[in-house]
């Protein structure tokens, strides 16, 4: 379940369709302050089913849709597709036949929200189940957001327990 490709359109500052392919072991994302690097992390978390707008640095979920700039109008929707490589067979059995699994999440300004797996509409639960089995869920130790690395140490011992339960 390695990430092969990330496609964004209308998501936060990525108003135009943008594709990042991740074919190497260590991929670095660089650029000046405020240019959109951490927005790519938010896009991955959102696509994997993140339900809390606050956790995506917004007040409400439509804050993920491109809000306009001096030169561009607001965008009508946000769409992110995350394509995984399933050659390692880590995905749950119902996906065993697929070499690649593409998870898509879409949100329109009028609040219409959609999830798709390999272009077939599914429910949020299907997306969450896909990730739970593979250890890559959004709550696990696989994503460390900016400025939060120290929290692992300063959090309460009960909170650290949750990390261990993810790995159980």
């Amino acid at each position, binding site marked *: *379940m*390695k*990430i092969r490709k990330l496609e964004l359109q209308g998501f*936060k*500052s*990525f*108003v*135009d369709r*943008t*594709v*990042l392919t*991740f*074919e*190497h*072991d*260590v*991929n*670095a*994302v*660089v*650029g*000046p302050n*405020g*240019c*959109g*690097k*951490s*927005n*790519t*992390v938010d896009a*991955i978390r959102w696509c994997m089913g993140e339900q809390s707008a606050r956790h995506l640095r917004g007040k409400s979920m439509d804050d993920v849709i491109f809000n306009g*700039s*001096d*030169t*561009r109008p607001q965008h009508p929707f946000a769409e992110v597709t995350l394509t995984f490589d399933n050659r*390692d067979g*880590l995905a749950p059995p119902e996906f065993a036949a697929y070499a690649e699994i593409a998870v898509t999440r879409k949100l329109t300004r009028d609040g219409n929200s959609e999830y798709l797996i390999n272009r077939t509409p599914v429910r949020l639960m299907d997306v969450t189940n896909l990730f739970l089995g*593979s*250890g*890559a869920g959004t709550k*696990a*130790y*696989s*994503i*460390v957001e*900016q400025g939060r*690395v*120290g929290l*692992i*140490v*300063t959090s309460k*011992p*009960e909170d*650290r*327990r949750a*990390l*261990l*339960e993810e*790995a*159980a």
Partner: protein
Amino acid sequence: SRRRFRETFDAVNAHFQELFPRLFRGGKGMLQLTDDGDLLETGVEIVAQPPGKKLINLEAMSGGEKTLTAVTLLFALFLHRPSPFCLLDEVEAALDEANVIRLVDLVRDLTKHSQFILITHNKRTMSMADVLYGVTMQEPGVSKLVSVKLRQDEALQTTAVA
């Protein structure tokens, strides 16, 4: 269940004890259960002793020491149950150069288990990555991908990404 939690704790603790002296160049670190008798509720305490120092209370640690301890726990979990990918957003911001090198060396070792995506401003981290994705806002407010530089190619050919 209790047994499963106990097995996981013991395995992660073993990795933690092995990784701590590697990141801190010595010293001792380990995990402890706050309530051994109640495996369903117990919290997990971190015990850290950098080289030459007495056991320190986590709050008294320096910024860099907290980052190294957090990363040790993170990677100990990884070694027990690798996640297919790992996303780190400027985790090395508080580290000095020597510790950044130790961290990226460890990341390189872990690529046997997982794929890494690192967001960084640090030149050391950039130099060890296999590929660099440049994100820019040449048009203010609009993010675009500008270039991909491959590590092994010294000329760092910049292919403009359509």
